[in-house]
């Protein structure tokens, strides 16, 4: 394509020449970076541990702040530069939706570590998109099951943030809950005063509250609930699955539950140890998925994939045991549902501790 850099796009120069870049795009800064950064670190670790004499692979990180508008120029750049043989991401559904057709046009294989919106694989399918997480239909069902079965709730109050991630997820939760949902309310990103929502809760008297959204708004919402004396258990989706959740919410967040389609990483695993050594922290949100996504690309290179087409072909047919799960992609790019596990994590003293596995 035109507009490549003068580093000469060696597109069809396969064979011996194996210098490639893998793009990573996601919210590397911004309010929700803590949900994304561990997975990027995971990918970096995978690349570091990779042994291959033939190939020279670098990972290029692009910060999108999770904003679709900022993600599209990044995608165009990656698409236009033939040395990019694959992309890990997008981390969030919104940016993924905005960019997948660009990658599709350029034939760049995507493997997302965390984008869960249903439509990404169920509507307007593109061949290049794959993901290591199940979609919100299942996540929503799992959350609903947790609410009714584990918590025994029969009156759930569902709140979402009116955004591309929170709203559809809350919709799925609502669908599965059926009559077990008493009321639904919508809030906004950037909102800090939730008094109207709280007073709705007070009259609805729920025995559990679900929030579909991100950390920034979940923290004040939860605090105001507790201030108002609403003690019902609080459950959130993977949008809260970041180290910052505990810090932001403070003592009011004690016991809050975060659901994630990601299995806990055993503290004594080698991955946990390596990660800890490399980055000085225990592996956080989607770290294992990030590691797995990168591993898929690296396996392709090991296998001799040297062009975007070969990469795509390899990833489509890939099967293997990953850190997070047994990896395989169906025709839509989803991992088979039976390979996935859902976990509830509880906020204890500011950290998320695995509580129980849930079935959708």
């Amino acid at each position: 394509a035109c507009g490549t850099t003068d580093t000469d796009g060696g597109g069809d120069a396969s064979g011996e020449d194996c210098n490639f870049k893998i793009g990573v795009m996601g919210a590397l800064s911004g309010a929700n970076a803590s949900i994304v950064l561990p997975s990027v670190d995971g990918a970096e670790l995978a690349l570091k541990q990779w042994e291959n004499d033939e190939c020279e692979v670098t990972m290029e990180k692009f910060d999108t702040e999770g904003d679709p508008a900022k993600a599209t120029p990044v995608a165009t750049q990656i698409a236009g530069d033939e040395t990019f043989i694959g992309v890990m991401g997008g981390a969030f559904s919104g940016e993924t939706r905005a960019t997948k057709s660009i990658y599709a046009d350029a034939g760049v294989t995507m493997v997302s570590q965390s984008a869960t919106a249903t439509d990404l694989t169920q509507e307007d399918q593109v061949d290049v998109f794959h993901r290591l997480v199940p979609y919100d239909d299942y996540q929503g069902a799992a959350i609903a099951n947790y609410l009714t079965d584990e918590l025994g709730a029969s009156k759930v109050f569902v709140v979402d943030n009116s955004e591309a991630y929170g709203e559809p997820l809350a919709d799925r939760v609502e669908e599965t809950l059926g009559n077990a949902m008493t009321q639904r309310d919508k809030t906004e990103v950037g909102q800090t005063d939730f008094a109207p929502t709280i007073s709705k809760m007070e009259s609805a008297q729920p025995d559990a509250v679900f929030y579909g959204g991100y950390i920034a708004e979940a923290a004040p919402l939860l605090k105001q609930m507790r201030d108002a004396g609403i003690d019902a258990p609080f459950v959130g989706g993977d949008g809260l699955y970041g180290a910052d959740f505990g810090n932001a919410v403070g003592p009011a967040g004690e016991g809050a539950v975060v659901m994630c389609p990601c299995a806990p990483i055993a503290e004594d695993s080698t991955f946990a140890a390596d990660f800890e050594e490399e980055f000085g922290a225990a592996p956080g949100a989607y770290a294992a998925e990030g590691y797995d996504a990168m591993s898929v690309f690296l396996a392709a290179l090991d296998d001799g994939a040297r062009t975007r087409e070969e990469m795509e072909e390899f990833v489509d047919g890939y099967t293997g045991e990953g850190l997070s799960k047994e990896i395989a992609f169906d025709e839509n790019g989803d991992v088979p549902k039976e390979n996935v596990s859902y976990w509830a994590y509880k906020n204890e003293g500011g950290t998320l501790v695995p509580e129980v596995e849930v079935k959708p």
Partner: protein
Amino acid sequence: MDFDALFSGLDRHTLDGITRGSIYALVALGYTMVYGVMKLINFAHSEVFMVGTWTVLGVYTVLGVSAGAGLAAVIGATLLALIAAMLASAGTALAVERIAYRPLRKKGAPPLIFLITGIGCSMVLVETFGQVLRFFFGPPFGRVTVNIPSVLQTRDLFTIPGVDLTITNTRVIIIVGAIVMMLALDTFVNKSRLGRGVRAVAQDPDTASLMGVNQNRVIMLVFVLGGAMAGVAALLYTIQYDITKFDIGFIIGLKAFTAAVLGGIGNLRGALVGGLLLGIAEVYASTIWSSEWANVTAFVVLVVVLMFRPTGLLGESLGKARA
């Protein structure tokens, strides 16, 4: 649409709206004062408020107080935080005036330039907390939501009999605090000699100086007073919401500015009326529909009010002469 929900708890919702609106009103004062005197929208004012919230956090952290401290410690820490926040906010406002606006005033720049400079200052302040300070000191600075210890914990004070409305201590502090501050400022500007100087500069700076008013002093005074009010708002805000964030000023600033215009920009009492009305309108709308429509409602109320009263509810305090 759920009008039942609104009417069944009308008193409660109104109280919620007043609480929300009190903070808007206090921040709106800063916009209104600066606008009144200099005819410019100080876009950096939202960040003046933001700095106040961080100052409260800083004071609590330094003092090491946290939730559940003794009564004396709570009162002491809160007062200290109040003073610090007022000073920090006033200082920030003054710094913006000195560093950014004064050179422009010297050059006689048109209002639009002040607007863009204000936006620039606002970005600088936001990024200072979101990026620069984090780079040097690490967390809690950065782009994440930060928890502020709820030193002053919410307690039920009394219940209004008949309507069965429970009033908490924080609500009393916020509403009473906001109204008292506003009355004090209003009295100052309308009754005191210095206040008259402020109004004179607002109407005709040259002639004001011929009457012996020091224009620079008045302008500084305006920024300091507006900033201090934002500092008060910052403390009240942290009492109610217990959080801060690098970009927290943006939305509050937008609302406060809307409130100022709604009441009649340049008019101090207008800021109060506008703030409360806006707060109530938002809460009502959030109750009837949900919070996703609150902002739309706020702006629609603004447009409707301006259509019938083109200079806001109470009008600009400065009458306009014609031909």
